[in-house]
């Protein structure tokens, strides 16, 4: 037994020693390092909630990095600015424009300032003059504006309230098939007292759409019918339930349309309560939605 024990011990020692020497760690996986991609997380709300602004607000707000400004391009439709801005720039600021300087206080005596097109990455003249001198800019001609700007046409500062926004929101589908992304982003140019956006941001609209679309199953005939846009106005309570039955905003005599409208109203009824940010209750208290069977649910 003694011999066997020593043989075994020696064998184990040999194996362990061999393991210590030759199994010295495993080869690391050949993971080729990808060059890191700088990613900035920018929520859509950052662009759709640009409302806070005060007269004495200094422009030392941390400038938004250039990337978001670039990304803003698809949101803000290219704005045909009548005059080249660099010409009249009194003191071009080298730093990128803080996004928020685009918003002026509601009681700004000036004619409605053109919300600084964030698209322009080049130095902008605005922030400085905002404080001391009126921007020497010609009042932009409203007709020249493209579609998304509809929302901000002359938001008379004093009348600015949530209902107004809701009403503006209602106009969007009429303005001719804008994409859902632009629907919610009203690109407010004037701040509200509450400081938060006076509109549902796209993400919240999406949330609402998502919640409703779970329950919405339009009949097949409706899906085939093609051009059918059912606009439904819904009024919500604070807890997300409907305070009134949803109402059809564009009644029609077309039977297929009526089927679709019934399906839409049924969906709205069935899916309540809706979960939306309660601090924006004044915004989603009244929401108009457009149901488009082709994209299942159009905002």
């Amino acid at each position, binding site marked *: 037994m003694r*011999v*066997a024990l020593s043989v075994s*011990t020696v064998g184990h020692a040999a194996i362990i020693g061999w393991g210590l020497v030759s*199994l*010295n760690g495993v080869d690391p996986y050949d993971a080729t390092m990808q060059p890191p991609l700088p990613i900035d997380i920018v929520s859509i709300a950052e662009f759709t909630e640009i409302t806070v602004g005060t007269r004495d607000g200094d422009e030392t707000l941390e400038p938004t990095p250039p990337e978001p400004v670039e990304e803003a391009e698809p949101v803000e439709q290219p704005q045909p600015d009548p005059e080249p801005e660099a010409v009249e720039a009194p003191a071009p600021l080298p730093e990128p424009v803080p996004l928020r300087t685009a918003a002026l206080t509601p009681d700004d005596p000036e004619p409605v300032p053109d919300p600084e097109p964030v698209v322009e990455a080049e130095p902008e003249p605005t922030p400085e003059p905002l404080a001391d001198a009126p921007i020497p800019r010609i009042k932009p001609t409203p007709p020249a504006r493209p579609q998304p700007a509809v929302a901000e046409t002359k938001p008379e500062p004093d009348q600015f309230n949530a209902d107004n926004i809701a009403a503006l929101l209602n106009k969007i589908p009429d303005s001719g098939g804008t994409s859902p992304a632009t629907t919610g982003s009203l690109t407010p140019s004037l701040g509200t007292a509450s400081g938060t956006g006076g509109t549902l941001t796209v993400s919240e609209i999406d949330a609402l759409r998502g919640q409703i679309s779970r329950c919405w199953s339009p009949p097949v005939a409706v899906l085939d019918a093609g051009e059918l846009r059912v606009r439904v106005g819904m009024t919500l309570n604070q807890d997300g339930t409907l305070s009134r039955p949803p109402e059809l905003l564009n009644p029609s005599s077309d039977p297929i349309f009526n089927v679709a409208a019934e399906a839409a109203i049924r969906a709205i009824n069935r899916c309540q309560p809706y979960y939306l940010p309660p601090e924006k209750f004044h915004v989603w208290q009244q929401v108009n939605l457009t149901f488009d069977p082709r994209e299942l649910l159009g905002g």
Partner: protein
Amino acid sequence: MLEATTLSAPSEVSMLSLFLQADIVVKLVMIGLLFASIWCWAIIFEKVVTYRRTRGRMDQFEKVFWSGHSLEELYQSLSARTNHAMAALFVAAMREWKRSHETGALSMMGVQSRIDKVMDVTIARETARLEGRLLFLATVGSAAPFIGLFGTVWGIMNSFQAIAASESTNLAVVAPGIAEALFATALGLLAAIPAVIAYNKLSSDVNKIITRLEGFADEFSAILSRQLDERN
């Protein structure tokens, strides 16, 4: 406990570092499994050698036994040293036979039953000697994986606690603790697999040897019985 497994991503994951970083419980488990493995292999070596030698000597003995030599001479040569089971069986039976002769108590049935009893006892003793320590192999074979698993569970438990304490879920931080814990299971399996295989092999060997012993005992008993008949 947490200090023992501070999760600093080690530069290397070698066997030694795996062992050294482990928690004390895991270390004890590993050491215990190592000793169990050493002891298992010692038993395996010893048994393999013993059985082979026993089989060889039994072959030799049977060859001599059936060659027609005088049993008396064979007894004289073997009584001094009985180095295998069959010789022990033969010597025990012969001794009983001779004693019965010397005392003259030659009632046929009595001698026969005494010799059978002596041979049974001898077979039982030899069986116990041959099978000794084989149970340890069976125990290690069934228990070592559990012991290793216990070490692993303990190590992973500690790892998770340390991960929670360090508030990092980076895989480079998490992995060494889990690797070190799994090392315990690896050792358990390493000890258990040979033990199970060897136990099955060796116990079947033992059974063969014992069957052979019993066959020889029956034959020898028949021979002695015939002798008794002839004398009477």
